[in-house]
């Protein structure tokens, strides 16, 4: 049957990408339908129970700055919070929240159910309705046809999913859930490049069977951090510790002895897994000289005894899993509640996507999340938000929004994916961002919230808080730059003594703050004046101290901006451009970069090639001008 009413946007999948996509489109006022095979698993954390960390907190906070759910859910579900890299500088800091799975899921479910303009429907999708290279709608398992202007596909690991434990394997999208096979077949019929990737998850342990006295305790930070810009410590539930165990030589022997029954080492699994999140069998094989590895034991929640041993993801047979877990000090009697497994799944070559995450070959069809070759909740969530936003923009007849590499980590993520493709699951790291000093977790709101408001993603409450913070920062910078201290005055002497610096002449407070010895808290203490809003104060301090570096990066960005603004038409025949090497012609044909800037980031493309492209563009332009001048 045809469903009686039509939607603006349909989102397929209810994981982190799907929920952010559906919420974003609905926030923008588009009539949105979220289709999932199981409403009870909406917002499920399929792998480790944590949000944030290096590079990932940057993404979570960008989701937050754009009005998304993830960071707020983490604040309401986080049971241990830490700020990683707190001493290496503000740009590489990463807030990480250990989360209670049940609380997290409940928070997301609640948001979805209370979001105006959003409808949920439980049915697997088997088919896409495509006419003349344009999406029309979807068909569910029981044959219901839903029609919409835009469709966002966020099927995670479910497309053609195969679960491996030892030499046994079975179809599955996640332990306990069926895969999406019909949809996978359908996608392979479309003109898309599909590949296979692999990821894995560790066995889960019963906390009653663990001897914590033999483990190292890892408590959360004090004072307690928050994830969302609107977050409050009072939102956090009860806080608990994580624990650290170690593998030993015997653990490694057990694993080595089991490798002949490992699906990865016997060639059963073909897809590539993430190198930065390797299985334990990978770690001991590739780094054979390392005799011990850290294993983080993370509680899955407050109301459960389940423990997630982070660091022993494995697809070895269950008997080997049991033996290797029990070889570790503190885990001698550990009881495994769920076995670890590896999962292989279909992913779309992201080079078939545009910067708005729309498919190059089928208009109106958007892809987000793990299906694009990424891994991680935050990577999925921000893609979902971007795809949902662009799906809604399309339905509303508005232009796409494509954040640049110098504006947001999501800009880096999407540009990397569609320019370079990926051969392994892609995870965000701060070293992927060339403008790292500008893209900090502390200023995602300053970078994105205004844009989010313009797009319709940011509600009145968030907007008001943002505007107040921005004004406080500006006023404080103004005050500091016009408040002068002189040597020999009581205040001058007090400051000199407090920071142990000589005051040779008159300074304003902003100049003083720029000096390495001086901090904002100290200025506030000595002068008795300053911002009560800690986050605004932090912005003032970072902006002042990093002014030189930030200015230099901004110059670099401005220099490159010009070529970023030159579009490369989709129909350029690179083979006809003389002077380009065959290798460069091939690469540009494969990737079809959208702008000259993107072309320059394709590996192997030289400055001379960029010059030739520029001339080619000019020729086309002149040619078109001549044509249109013809009567």
């Amino acid at each position, binding site marked *: 049957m045809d469903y009686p009413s039509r939607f603006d946007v349909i989102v397929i999948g209810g994981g982190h990408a799907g929920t952010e996509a559906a919420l974003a489109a609905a926030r923008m006022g588009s009539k949105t339908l979220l289709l999932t095979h199981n409403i009870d698993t909406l917002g499920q954390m399929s792998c*480790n129970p944590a949000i944030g960390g*290096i*590079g990932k907190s940057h993404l979570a906070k960008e989701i937050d700055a754009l009005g998304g759910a993830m960071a707020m859910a983490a604040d309401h579900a986080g049971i241990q919070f830490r700020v*990683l*890299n707190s*001493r*290496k*500088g*503000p*740009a*590489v800091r*990463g807030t990480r929240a250990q989360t209670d799975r049940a609380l997290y899921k409940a928070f997301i479910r609640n948001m979805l159910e209370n979001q105006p303009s959003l409808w949920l429907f439980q049915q697997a999708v088997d088919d896409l309705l495509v006419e003349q290279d344009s999406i029309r709608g979807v068909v569910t398992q029981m044959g219901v046809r839903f029609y919409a202007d835009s469709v966002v596909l966020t099927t995670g690991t479910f497309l053609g999913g195969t679960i491996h434990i030892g030499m046994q394997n079975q179809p599955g999208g996640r332990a306990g859930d069926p895969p999406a096979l019909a949809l996978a077949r359908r996608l392979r019929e479309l003109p898309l490049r599909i590949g296979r990737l692999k990821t894995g998850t560790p066995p889960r342990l019963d906390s009653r069977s663990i001897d914590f006295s033999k483990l190292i305790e890892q408590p959360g930070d004090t004072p307690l951090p928050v994830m969302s810009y609107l977050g409050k410590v009072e939102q956090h539930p009860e806080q608990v510790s994580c624990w650290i165990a170690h593998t030993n030589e015997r653990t490694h022997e057990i694993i080595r002895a089991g490798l002949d029954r490992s699906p990865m080492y016997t060639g059963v699994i073909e897809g590539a897994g*993430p*190198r*930065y*999140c*390797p299985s334990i069998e990978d*770690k001991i094989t*590739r*780094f054979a000289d*390392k005799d011990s*590895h*850290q294993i*983080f034991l993370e509680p899955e929640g407050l109301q459960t005894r389940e423990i997630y041993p*982070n*660091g022993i993801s494995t697809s070895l047979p269950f008997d080997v899993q049991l033996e290797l877990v029990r070889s570790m000090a503190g885990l001698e009697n550990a009881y495994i509640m769920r076995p670890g497994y590896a999962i292989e799944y279909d992913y779309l070559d992201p080079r078939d996507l545009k910067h708005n995450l729309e498919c190059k070959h089928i208009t109106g069809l958007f892809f987000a999340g793990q299906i694009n070759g990424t891994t991680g909740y935050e990577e999925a969530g921000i893609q979902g938000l971007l795809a949902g936003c662009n799906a809604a923009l399309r339905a509303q007849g508005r232009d796409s929004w494509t954040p640049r590499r110098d504006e947001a980590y999501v800009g880096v993520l999407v540009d990397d994916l569609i320019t370079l493709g990926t051969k392994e699951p892609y995870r965000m*790291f*701060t*070293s*992927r961002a*060339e403008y*790292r*000093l500008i893209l900090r977790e502390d200023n995602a709101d300053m970078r994105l919230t205004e844009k989010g408001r313009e797009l319709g993603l940011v509600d009145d409450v968030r907007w008001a808080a943002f505007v107040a913070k921005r004004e406080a920062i500006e006023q404080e910078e103004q005050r500091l730059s016009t408040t002068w201290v002189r040597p020999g005055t009581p205040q001058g002497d007090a400051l000199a003594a407090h920071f142990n610096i000589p005051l040779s002449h008159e300074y304003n407070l902003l100049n003083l703050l720029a000096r*390495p010895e001086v901090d904002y808290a100290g200025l506030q203490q000595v002068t008795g004046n300053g911002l009560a809003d800690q986050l605004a104060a932090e912005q003032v301090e970072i902006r002042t101290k990093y002014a030189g*570096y930030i200015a230099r990066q901004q110059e670099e960005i401005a*220099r490159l901006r*010009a*070529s970023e*603004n*030159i579009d490369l038409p989709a129909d350029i025949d690179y083979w006809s451009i*003389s*002077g380009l090497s065959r290798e460069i012609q091939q690469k540009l044909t494969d990737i079809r970069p959208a702008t000259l800037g993107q072309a*320059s*980031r394709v*590996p*192997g*493309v*030289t*400055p*001379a090639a960029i*010059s*030739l492209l*520029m*001339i080619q*563009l*000019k*020729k086309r*332009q*002149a*040619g078109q001008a001549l044509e249109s001048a013809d009567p």
Partner: protein
Amino acid sequence: MTYPQDTIAAIATAQGRGGVGIVRVSGSLVTDIATAVCQVRLQPRHARYGSFVDNSGLPLDEGIALFFKGPNSFTGEDVLELQGHGGPVILDLILKRCVELGARLARPGEFSERAFLNDKLDLAQAEAIADLIEASSVQAARNAVRSLQGEFSRHVHELTEQLIELRIHVEAAIDFPEEEIDFLADGQILAKLEAVRNRLADVQNRAGQGALLRDGMNVVIAGRPNAGKSSLLNALAGHEAAIVTDIAGTTRDTLKEHIHIDGMPLHMTDTAGLRQTTDAVEQIGVQRALRAIDQADRILLVVDSNSGEAADPFALWPEFLDQVPPVGKVTLIRNKADLSGEPCAIESFADGHSCISLSAKQGQGIDLLREHLKSCMGYQQTSESTFSARRRHLQALEQASHSLHNAYEQLVHSRAGELVAEDLRMAQQQLGEITGEFSADDLLGRIFSSFCIGK
């Protein structure tokens, strides 16, 4: 369509020695550069004769400056042409000055490219320009291959590798704080950074010598009045370039002479004798001498071997030493050996300076000096130890060195990992300018293969 509007500069005349050499600048900074170099606001399309000055207002050269206001110029942008004397050293100094003022060195064919993009050339010429760029890049590639086989590129590549190795340690410490690999905290990074800095200094040193071989060495003859400086210049030049009299203070201005030794260019500057003087004209001469000394690649410090102060001239002339920080640049010439009777000979000292006894008047020991100058240019060293580096290369090395210095300061003083990382990123980008690649490094890939990482 808008195109990149940064300012480019290049030597527009053919490499080598000509009567006139032209440095051409195009882009938005041209007006500022013109005003700074010529010290006046130039009228568009008016030829103006005057000095081209350095950052302290001292003349680098004299010549004609031409300013074309965009779009009425070759490239369609503001264009400045500085027509000076043809020598590569002088042109290089002028170019360097433009770069100091914000221009970047142009790629081959880039002026024509801009002309085309700004509608200054018609469509029919597009192919020709494309061919030009292709040819230039082929030429550049050929040059690159040539130097790829050469020592210079090998050294730059090794240096880059060493820098990447350092960067993967820093980036690993930043992106994987929960792994047991915090190199920032354990002093490993500092040791590696020092090693990279030393390596870079070594490459800079060698590359500098390579540039000397190609563009020539600035040699300044300095000393007390009437020590025989002008005689020495004449002896080396093989003709009477300087007026030689026995009246102390005859050379009141600096005198320049270009000579070749076995085909290698030397730019000789004879200077006024260094002494306290009340003569206004001579005072100016002394000032100019000191300035020439400041810019010299090598200083021949001439003393009369018969005079008392010849025993230890350095100790007697502290004001001179103030002007010449690296004593290794100095060759002490004990002139008039025919009168003092000491044998013509060369001696090297531990602090890096050398001493040659000779007689300029009699031509005795001049061969020793010639050989010595050749060896100073790296001529006698094995060919592996020097390389032909262009100005672009030297500039890139200099910038990279500056970035590494900043990284060191950050690491030692503020221990801010992300700023160390940023300065190292800059350094690698600057070295990448030499190899002409957009840097597409796979730092993460290297991290994963070097360290055991992953939860």
